[in-house]
């Protein structure tokens, strides 16, 4: 296994980097969309149910099935892989962003309004910091499931660490498979830890 690494370290690193940026891009885009959706649900309650139903439905579609729905539209490769991960993440992220804002103590918001903070000031100095820990918690869950799921992207030629696993399996090169497994697990583990650290910091700030 070590020999495999010394021989192919450039390939391993390349795939690791690819895997990481693909996951990060997927979660980043997913967060932007989920944030907008969650704000809509937070302000206009009538949107909450339809958005939830939609997210649940998409989440229930198996990965390979979703790939085959998307490939005719977005083709083989990274686009499809990222779109798939973005769609799955909506389930986790809209829920966590929404509840992050909904669980803010009403008396705090009432006071902010009553002492003369305008909407934007309340948002920046009260709502956002108080909602941050739960939002980060959502991002943590999304990121670790995405990093794990991103191995499947190799099936549609999108690269990433899944390539080591699937190619290794077909060529019976188990050293390669092992590296794929180890690196993708480490990657998920590291992502989880970084996010946990950020979440703890944010929580510390509001619970001091």
């Amino acid at each position, binding site marked *: 296994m070590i020999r495999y690494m010394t021989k192919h370290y450039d390939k391993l690193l390349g795939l690791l980097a690819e895997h990481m940026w693909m996951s990060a891009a997927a979660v980043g885009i997913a967060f932007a969309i989920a944030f907008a959706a969650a704000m809509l649900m937070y302000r206009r309650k009538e949107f909450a149910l339809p958005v939830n139903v939609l997210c649940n439905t998409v989440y229930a579609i198996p990965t390979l099935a979703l790939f085959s729905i998307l490939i005719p539209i977005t083709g083989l490769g990274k686009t499809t892989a990222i779109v798939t991960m973005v769609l799955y993440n909506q389930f986790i992220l809209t829920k966590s962003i929404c509840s992050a804002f909904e669980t803010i103590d009403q*008396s*705090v918001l*009432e*006071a902010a309004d*009553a*002492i*003369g*903070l305008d909407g934007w000031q309340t948002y920046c100095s009260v709502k956002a910091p108080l909602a941050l820990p739960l939002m980060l918690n959502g991002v943590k869950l999304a990121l670790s499931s995405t990093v794990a799921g991103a191995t499947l992207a190799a099936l549609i030629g999108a690269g990433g660490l899944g390539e080591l696993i699937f190619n290794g399996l077909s060529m019976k090169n188990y050293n390669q498979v092992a590296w794929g497994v180890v690196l993708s697990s480490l990657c998920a583990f590291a992502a989880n830890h970084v996010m946990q650290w950020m979440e703890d910091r944010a929580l510390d700030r*509001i619970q001091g």
Partner: protein
Amino acid sequence: MAKTAIEFIHVHKTFPGSGVEAAKDVNLRIEEGSIVTVLGTSGSGKTTLLKLINRIYDCTQGRVEYFGKDVATLPVVALRRQIGYVIQQSGLFPHWTVERNIATLPHILKWDKGRIDKRVDELMALVRLDPECRMRSVRKLSGGQQQRVGLARALAVNPSVILMDEPFGAIDAITREELQDELLALQTRLKITIVFVTHSIREALKLGHKIVVMDKGEIRQADTAYNILLKPANEFVRRFVSSDDFYEALRALRVSECMDDLGRAGGDPRSSAPKIDRDATMGDALQTLIRSGQSRLMVIDAEGGPVGELTFDSYRGVAARSEKDCGTA
């Protein structure tokens, strides 16, 4: 007559969808520099009344005037910044320190750092907060201390009016008394106008220069503690404030309301009669009277000049009236 700070003019408030009138033809004048307590059970519309002032709610009919101007015509954020607001759960920002909470508005108004620091110092001294807790998170404070921070925050930019919605409701009895006494002292010093909502009769009578008794959105009586206790305007007020305990009533009545004014004879400042402040409660005066072993107290004003006298007859008067009222039950 003092200037009018706030005036309700034929105010009605109905919440959309409920049909219940939370305010029904409310007319009320609140003098500048006075404390008005709004007393009522939950659902009586007392909090609604408060929130109509800083436009958390808008009147369905009628208008609320703030120093002569209809609040509906004033820019809402600017209006709220001139009106301090303190609520029961304190509403402090849990992610901020004591200092940052107190300086909420100065920060928004972009005061420079030196001015903010100085103001926070002043305010913490004013509400008697230990300077040591300045950098502490507000979550770590006791309920009483949180209310002090809330009050300091409300006072930060020198508001002319402070609205308080059951601020001491969730605080233990001893601390509550303490906070009430300090609020009174602070108000006397700053001459600020306070509208104070409470469901505690004792608190309303103790703090209010004027007490507004609310029921089902209507004002049943708006008067001094003396008149509310001894001349209730109607059956509702009489039952609401009726206290079997004579001493309870004495705690709420002020000496100045029950004393005999000095007649033509005038008072002799050299009289040996023990002195009592006109703003003391009748309860305190009774203690002084009994301890002195004499039959009369000389009532003095803040400058020490005699303004009246208090005898056991004054107490008999109070007892007779409250008994008479109870007798009609």
